[in-house]
């Protein structure tokens, strides 16, 4: 089977309950190699919980997760070696230099020729002047680029990104998006993207999952969602769903959608 069309993520009936609170309620989706799937929803919709379960940080109450063909409940380490994660809310050790941080993760991910890989990432993400500076002394935008470099250190086949451009200026944000598009095109990597930046989602995502109160309440390509809600941009669609303002003109078509 070629890389394209292969399911990198397969989630079935995924549920997470904390006592009386149902944080994720039986969601199902797939992400194919080479696709970028956007995970959208308001605060508390269940996005972070879903990502944490995909990463093996959190055990589901029910349901199954297969990542890169591996059952994440039984065999997560084989998948973890081939995926990576970036979030502005999880930091790198501040007193270590950028180079040291990348070396640490190069070792953890068993990357061959670490220094060559660091040089490669440094050139691609313009980190040259940052490599020997402590990570804690970087600006928010620089930290985001370094976090992205960390998440790419093992050339992942699946990238989970939680608001990857949240603190970047428009210019740097655009560079990062361009770089992500190129990386996906060149490697066939799948990307799961949680973002509140609707323009970013429209640009990067081939499919979008709209979450609300732990459930996937709608899904489709950005254009499909715009068409069905009769809106010009995804932000309006987001607000329609979040505030129950408007329902889709056409019902959700499940066939062929992730």
């Amino acid at each position, binding site marked *: 089977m070629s890389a394209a069309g292969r399911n990198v993520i397969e989630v079935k009936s995924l549920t997470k309950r904390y006592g009386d609170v149902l944080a994720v309620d039986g969601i199902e989706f797939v992400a194919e190699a080479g696709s970028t799937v956007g995970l959208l929803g308001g605060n508390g919709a269940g996005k972070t919980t879903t990502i944490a379960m995909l990463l093996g940080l959190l*055990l589901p109450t029910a349901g199954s997760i297969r990542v890169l063909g591996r059952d994440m409940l039984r065999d997560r380490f084989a998948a973890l070696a081939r995926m990576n994660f970036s979030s502005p809310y999880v930091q790198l050790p501040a007193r270590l230099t950028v180079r040291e941080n990348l*070396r640490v993760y190069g070792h*953890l991910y068993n990357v061959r020729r670490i220094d060559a890989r660091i040089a490669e990432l440094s050139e691609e993400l313009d980190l040259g002047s940052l490599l020997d500076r402590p990570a804690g002394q970087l600006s928010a935008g620089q930290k985001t680029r370094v976090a992205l470099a960390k998440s790419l250190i093992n050339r992942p086949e699946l990238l989970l990104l939680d608001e990857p451009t949240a603190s970047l200026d428009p210019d740097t944000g655009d560079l990062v998006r361009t770089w992500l598009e190129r990386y996906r095109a060149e490697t066939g990597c799948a990307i799961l993207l949680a973002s509140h930046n609707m323009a970013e989602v429209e640009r990067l995502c081939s499919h979008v999952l709209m979450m609300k109160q732990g459930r996937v309440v709608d899904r489709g390509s950005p254009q499909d969602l715009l068409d069905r809600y009769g809106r010009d941009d995804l932000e309006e669609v987001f607000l329609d769903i979040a505030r129950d303002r408007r329902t889709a003109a056409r019902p959700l078509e499940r066939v062929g959608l992730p």
Partner: protein
Amino acid sequence: MSGAPRRVWGLMYRHLALYRRSWPRLLELAYWPVLGMCIWGFTATFLTSRLGSGAAIAASALLGGVLLWEVALRSQMGMAISFLEEIWSRNLGHVFVSPLRPWELVAALIAMSIIRMMIGVAPAVLIAWLFYAFNLFALGPILILFFINLMIMGWWVALGVVSLILRHGAGAEPLAWSVLFGLTPFSAVFYPVAVLPAAVQPFALALPSAHVFEGMRGVLLEGVIHWHHLAWAVGLNAVWLGAATLLFAQQFHQARVRGALLSIGE
């Protein structure tokens, strides 16, 4: 190097890089052991000068106790504080989504605790020899077994502390410094177990450290190796280490159920 050893080295490299550039951190490792040795060293000198040769033998037991207890203390703190470093740097999320297995994390913490303990205790051993004429190595090869047993005790106590941090988060952090100090009175570091009240003695004898220090006094004061004490120390360490490992595995699992691995320390 690849696979598990490389991942363990990766986490060790993270801590070693931290120390490489920070002399205050290195100094801090040796500060308390050296300070303790100076205080007890002068005390021993004073007692010996006033009370004569009988006190000199007791003083050597005192200094031996000070040094060997530091082995347990620094091993425990070295492991627990290395784990806390990950929490303080808000880096645990990255570590736990890497292919690093929990037992590899523990192996790296143990390796760091050995390094930290050696850096901390070595200057105190040197000071004892140079200024107080106490040569710890005069205990002979048995010293290695004393060291190993006290290090293992430090590790299982640290594993218990890490488990409590996984369960209770930042609220359990002070245990990393305090918990082994709390066991000092029952570890018979400076006096025999027989000195303790009868009701407390069973508790003391359940600690490997009490048997190690009884063994140390046997060598220093009587010139005899009490093998039964060493056997008890080894057996008790095996039991406690097994219990602490089960506790850690259970709390790590529970942390994954509760979602605490991302929010720990907040």
